[in-house]
């Protein structure tokens, strides 16, 4: 049995209730933390080496250290989870909201936040109910509010619902949204909300899974966390596996302990593909990530390992595409997503996503010509000049430069499939 940190209580009946959480030692980490100094709590998180679980993979302890020490500063938890094929935070907020609340309160203490906010994706109706109920229970239990557990530390915790906009996952857009505005990402610099964030005050933004790891780190020590995994990839990660596999789902694995192949084929996890099919491509880290081919299936699931292969572990989601599925159609659908969700502030992103979507659709439907392939690459190059990885940024946020990832990967890996669509004037796959 491998170590389960964030999903330890998933599957326990009524895992979301305070009574269940307390039976499993819940809120003892908060008590422990409040008996430590904020620096000591911070030091444990530093020692854990935990990388943020939201996508960018920035070390949590280092981010906290960057927080400008103004008297007024805030903590905002990012639960907007809308990166296509990412569904790990969804599980955590529904099944273990108290773990999230406890991690948030410990963090608020460590960084000295004036108020903490949990921003949850609006579509998570059940998640909103579960987290609000957990917050209500936590207040009644004395874990949040005035003079928490008699420690002299006080704070209020507020749940904020989103209202349907992918871009609000980007941390500066999330802050705008939390201020009651349209979710427009802010122009950088300032690069970090840790300097100028919510209401202009220094703000830490951390992901739901990042926060959910904190109680375990305080209970077991940062060193125990760092003992799991390898290199910069410490602890576990919750991998969201989907697409053409027999057993899609969330699997919490010690980082680097398994390869893509093991996650996809092990009967305990993905359970393999349908009879007679093989892996054609894998999209690691959300649809912003470049695809990897079957030749990379033996890569361990670690931050640097995937980065070295020219992609990213990103949000920890993994989509499998088998050889009966169409690469053109998948890449087209991903572009359509970006086109719908572009906030419209930057020309390359707003216009480029539309053009790529149109051309890709034309290719999929069989009404394209060979020159359309070059045209689509040219538009991609205008969004992210040089088509390098990581991409060059010409826009306010990194949604723009993420648009070419799928299209460029698909054309690089499956050019012949594109040519068949063009020559035979249609999609050769049955769907």
């Amino acid at each position, binding site marked *: 049995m491998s170590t389960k940190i964030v999903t330890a209580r998933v599957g326990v009946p009524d895992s979301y209730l305070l009574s269940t959480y307390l039976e499993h030692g819940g809120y003892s980490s908060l008590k422990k933390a409040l008996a430590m100094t904020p620096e000591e709590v911070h030091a444990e998180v530093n020692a854990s080496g935990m990388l943020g679980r939201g996508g960018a993979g920035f070390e949590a302890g280092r981010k906290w250290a960057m927080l400008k020490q103004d008297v007024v500063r805030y903590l905002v938890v990012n639960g907007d989870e809308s990166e296509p*094929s990412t569904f790990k*935070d969804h599980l955590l907020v529904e099944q273990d909201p108290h773990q999230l609340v406890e991690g948030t309160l410990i963090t608020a203490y460590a960084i000295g936040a004036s108020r903490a906010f949990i921003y949850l994706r609006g*579509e998570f109706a059940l998640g909103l109910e579960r987290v*609000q109920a957990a917050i209500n229970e936590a207040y009644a239990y004395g874990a949040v509010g005035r003079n928490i557990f008699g420690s002299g530390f006080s704070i209020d915790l507020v749940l904020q*619902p989103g*209202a349907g906009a992918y871009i609000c996952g980007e941390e500066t857009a999330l802050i705008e949204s939390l201020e*009651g505005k349209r979710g427009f990402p802010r122009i950088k610099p300032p690069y970090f909300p840790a300097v100028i964030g919510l209401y202009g005050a220094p703000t830490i933004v951390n992901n739901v899974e990042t926060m959910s790891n904190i109680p375990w780190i305080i209970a077991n020590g940062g060193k125990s966390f760092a003992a799991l995994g390898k290199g910069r990839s410490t602890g576990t990660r919750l991998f969201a596996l989907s697409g053409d596999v027999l057993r*899609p789902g969330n699997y919490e694995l010690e980082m680097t302990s398994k390869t893509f192949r093991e996650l996809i084929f092990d009967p305990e996890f993905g359970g393999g593909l349908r009879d007679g099919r093989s892996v054609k491509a894998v999209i690691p880290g959300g649809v912003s990530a470049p695809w990897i081919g079957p030749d990379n299936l033996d890569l361990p699931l670690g931050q640097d390992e995937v980065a070295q292969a020219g992609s990213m572990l990103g949000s920890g989601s993994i989509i499998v595409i088998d050889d009966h599925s169409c690469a053109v159609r998948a890449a087209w*659908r991903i572009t359509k997503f970006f086109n*719908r969700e572009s906030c419209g502030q930057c020309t390359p992103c707003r216009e480029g996503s539309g053009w790529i979507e149109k051309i890709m659709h034309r290719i999929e439907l069989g009404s394209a010509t060979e020159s359309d392939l070059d045209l689509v690459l040219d538009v991609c190059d205008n969004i992210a000049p040089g088509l390098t990885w990581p991409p060059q940024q010409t826009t306010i946020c990194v949604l723009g430069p993420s648009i070419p990832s799928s299209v460029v990967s698909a054309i690089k890996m499956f050019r012949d499939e594109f040519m068949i669509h063009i020559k035979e004037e249609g999609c050769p796959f049955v769907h």
Partner: protein
Amino acid sequence: MSFFTPENLGKAQVLVGLYPDKRSALIPLCHLAQGQHGHLSNEAMVEIAELLGIQPAEVMGTASFYDMLHTEEVGKYLVGVCTNVACMLGGGLELLEHASDVLGIPPGATTDDGMFTLEEVECVAHCDKAPCAQVNYRYFGPLADSDFDRLVDDLRSDRLSETVPPHGVLSRVFRDAPAMVPLEIIHQERRDMDEAKKARLAAQNQDAGGKQ
């Protein structure tokens, strides 16, 4: 005449009081209004603006950015079929076509009886149940065509009213209490915490210096 019922006005006032800047309550208030009325009416936006001390146009301007805030009427059940990539690989586009046939409307439209509005939606983080659909943000999947037909039947005959409230009602759990600690008190506490921390660090440095 006020838009919010007395009960909801109470909730609205709690929401407004939660933030250092009232405007942050804009989205929560829009959800509250939709919960009461099914969509975001002009009267609601005017009242929200009043509660927040801003112009109704600012409420409209913000609300129009967000997919879940509907300034036009929508059906009692907002059915969103996901066709993003994981669902697409599982037959999401075909499910959307089927949904359109069964309900007799294209995506974006509402049935004549006002029962259903159909939408094509982006990933709703339910990808391990592909292809999936959400009804008023309650999730169903994986859905074969026949499962979808049964779902529509159940909704029509009110068999799912427990799990799926009418459109607009999002979270049915509200905050028990307003914010407990005035920010002035928090700020004083933080000043003290920061002073204490500085003193500890200075003492540590001195210790370290002494040992050298």
